[in-house]
């Protein structure tokens, strides 16, 4: 595993795009089709779909699109799937790792803008920020606002959207932000570890598409994420 000493990005870095997916056979093709073939300053890109114990053909559909698909034989959770994907990206020699959701809520066209701060060495971690208006459902808007406010109060960092799953970071810094959460707490834990490691964090406004069929974080997840924030704050 690369050490932080190797953190300086190469002139033409290799990008790994990790997409955790569960039962997304219907949407994954569209998502993969929307990932840009060419990203400025990136020599090559490797798309890694982590099928997290799907009961449908998610992995097969992904493979048919020529991407690397690894499969959890049972469902472990989003955080665990991201870990597996990041390990695969590191194994493939990627210099920058981007993560995005498989349900089509992220606009893959935002990837180049998200990767830019990391590629240009202006940030170690770039996080997507969804506007708290427009299409975002009111309950989710309230939840995001609450969690972001709690994060600011507990960790002293003003982050507009702590829960957005569209992110990019320097692969060599993965050991410093490596999360233990196997579930939807992964985004928060990644941010907390990055804050504590004093990494440079960039916030990039991204677009979001909300579908009728929502499978993301629930109210229960939100409560657990808040509990995890408290636990990290206490264990400071």
């Amino acid at each position, binding site marked *: 595993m690369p050490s932080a000493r190797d953190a300086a990005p190469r002139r033409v870095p290799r990008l790994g795009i990790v997409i955790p997916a569960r039962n997304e056979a219907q949407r994954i093709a569209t998502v993969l089709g929307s990932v840009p073939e060419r990203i400025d300053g990136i020599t090559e890109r490797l798309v890694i779909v982590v099928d997290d114990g799907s009961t449908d053909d998610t992995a097969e559909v992904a493979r048919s699109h020529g*991407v690397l*698909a*690894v499969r959890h034989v*049972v469902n*472990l959770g989003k955080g665990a799937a991201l870990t597996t994907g990041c390990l695969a990206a590191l194994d493939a020699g990627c210099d920058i790792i981007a993560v995005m959701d498989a349900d089509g809520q992220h606009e893959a066209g935002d990837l180049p803008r998200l990767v830019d701060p990391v590629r240009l060495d202006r940030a170690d971690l770039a996080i997507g920020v969804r506007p708290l208006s427009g299409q975002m459902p009111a309950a989710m808007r309230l939840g995001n606002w609450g969690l972001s406010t709690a994060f600011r109060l507990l960790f002293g960092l003003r982050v507009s959207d702590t829960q957005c799953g569209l992110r990019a970071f320097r692969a060599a810094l993965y050991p410093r932000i490596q999360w233990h959460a196997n579930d939807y707490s992964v985004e928060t834990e990644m941010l907390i570890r990055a804050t504590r490691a004093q990494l440079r964090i960039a916030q990039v406004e991204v677009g979001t598409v909300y579908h009728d069929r929502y499978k993301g974080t629930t109210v229960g997840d939100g409560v657990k994420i808040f509990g995890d924030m408290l636990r990290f704050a206490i264990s400071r």
Partner: protein
Amino acid sequence: MTGIQLITIAVALLMLFITYSALRRHELRPYEYVTWSAIWLALLFVSVFPDLLRGIIGPLHVIRLLDLVTIVGLLVMGVLVFSLNRALRRLDDRLTAIVRTIALERPKGDEPTPPGPPA
């Protein structure tokens, strides 16, 4: 014999039967069977002969014997929940490691995406 005694006796007898059935189905190891059976027999004994234990509730400042049984039961339950939580966490970690190892062992022919065009 009070109503609560009868209920406790019934529960203890039922659990003895369930524990024995679990042993027969190989769902329990012998030492687990002995441990659980001892717990149910102790509960049965306390329910049938509550007066034999009256001597110990005074020094413990417990008014009724059943209160003592309830308190001890809660303590035992706390220990069990804690132990189960630890065991489950260990099991979860092992499962995650196994599933991840299997996932990362790429099947033959499942090669990564060919390199994209240069920037």
